[in-house]
């Protein structure tokens, strides 16, 4: 419990530090909204001309984009450092700082980084899911809303796990921007569009190796009742929470082993 109280205290401090730069924050709110809604606008323009993308209409693609933004927003809000930051700490030797305190280093790392932009991402995600729901006349039951919350948490676990595992590799090999960069590209671009437009190898990669497809594609099959989009196995539509837990367990093991193997760069 001590850990948890400390966690919230550190977190609140970091949040306060960010709110110091109020103008920066307001500018970034507008920027993120423009980015998200502008990109959605481009997809609308092109789907207005073409009707569908691999069998997915504008509302359905918007749902994929919005669902991804929900977990992405929480990731950016609470875990911004996990995407590349850990890497930098290890290479610069700054990581030693986290090991010197009598707290779980991963918890300390998370508490130390907050990025308010995540809040804007999350809100844009809500807006886009709402746009998709109106376009598609989706009927939201209590059960579906509950499952949506569980899916978002599962998706968050998947994202955290993938980046944690990718960062842990730098315990052994110091320079690995390539790995995080490529992971980034799959996370930021590939899953914006339905998985079925890609070839089998990429579909398998995003399902079994870096399971980003469970962040939005597979759960969307359930929410949109889209059995035509099933890939590999129909049960995958419900698997996001389980995949999240499994992925996290695996990533945490890699992280632990990495910690043990860690020898400081000493700088």
């Amino acid at each position, binding site marked *: 419990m001590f850990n948890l109280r400390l966690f919230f205290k550190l977190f609140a401090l970091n949040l306060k530090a960010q709110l110091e730069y109020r103008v920066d924050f307001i500018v970034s709110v507008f920027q993120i909204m423009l980015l998200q809604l502008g990109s959605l606008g481009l997809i609308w*323009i092109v789907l207005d001309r073409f009707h569908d993308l691999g069998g997915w209409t504008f509302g359905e693609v918007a749902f994929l984009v919005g669902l991804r933004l929900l977990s992405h927003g929480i990731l950016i809000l609470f875990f911004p450092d996990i995407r590349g930051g850990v890497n930098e700490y290890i290479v610069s030797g700054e990581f030693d700082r986290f090991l010197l305190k009598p707290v779980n280093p991963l918890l300390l790392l998370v508490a130390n980084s907050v990025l308010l932009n995540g809040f804007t991402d999350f809100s844009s995600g809500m807006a886009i899911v709402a746009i998709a729901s109106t376009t598609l006349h989706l009927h939201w039951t209590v059960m579906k809303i509950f499952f949506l919350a569980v899916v978002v948490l599962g998706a968050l676990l998947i994202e955290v796990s993938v980046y944690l595992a990718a960062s842990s590799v730098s315990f052994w090999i110091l320079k690995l921007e390539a790995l995080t*960069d490529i992971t980034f590209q799959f996370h930021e671009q590939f899953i914006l569009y339905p998985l079925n437009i890609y070839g089998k190898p990429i579909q398998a990669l995003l399902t079994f190796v870096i399971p980003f497809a469970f962040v939005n594609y597979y759960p969307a099959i359930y929410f949109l009742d889209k059995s035509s989009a099933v890939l590999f196995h129909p049960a995958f539509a419900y698997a996001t929470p389980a995949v999240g837990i499994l992925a996290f367990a695996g990533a945490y093991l890699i992280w632990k082993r990495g910690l043990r193997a860690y020898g400081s760069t000493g700088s």
Partner: protein
Amino acid sequence: MRAYLEIAKKSFQEMLSSRGEALIRLLAMLLSLYLLRSFWKGLYAGSDEVQGMKFTSMLTYATLSVITGGILNIFGLLQVYIAYWMARKMRSGEIVMDLLKPTDFELYLFSHSTGRLAFNLMFSVPVAILAFIVFRLEPPPGPAAAFLFMGSLAIGYLLVFLIDFLVSLIAFWTTQTRGVGGFTRLIIALLSGSFIPLWFFPAWARDALSWLPFSSIYHAPLSIFIGKLKGAEAMKTIAVQVAWALVLFALSRVLWSRARRHLMIHAG
């Protein structure tokens, strides 16, 4: 002139030393090519032509867009980077060292950025050639189109540089360009036709956007390459590009002399 060539050469050599980074960018470029190809294949769903745009022309456009992005990716971040660089130098005061040099500051930056461009060309052109062979893309309809494409692309680069430089001058007043720089990057990404060609936009939006400088960066050269813009229309587009380059260049001179004076007052 010699000095500027040397600056360009030096920045080219700087890039050569970071070949590892170039390799990652190459990999990212190949992934982008694959992504866009899947995207347009999913949209065309087997038809040869939609809204007057042939499938092969569209693939050619998308491939060239990735390549052009790789060439213009001067500082690692997409476009608009001088702005960030300048803001950093303003805050640290390092800018004084650049101003002490007996070179024209704008030309100095331009040479520096062109050296990096040369490096990008060196590894992007082979990717382009490979992509054209593997994907069986269309060459430009004739030598005139090829020539106009290169001219239009060059003016596009000039415009990216000028826009970036103008934004960077804001740092002389605010020492911070994060917000404006980000907005500029975003506007270029959304309105230049880099992802969705302006041909698919509603006619009124296309007309409006083709008068803005952003469409010069992707839409103009790529449309000339695939033969959608030709003859008098192509000439008109290039005239608009040249006009923007002149206007922005004049503006940059005026603003630069003001920024310089402002800095001197600042320094007391």
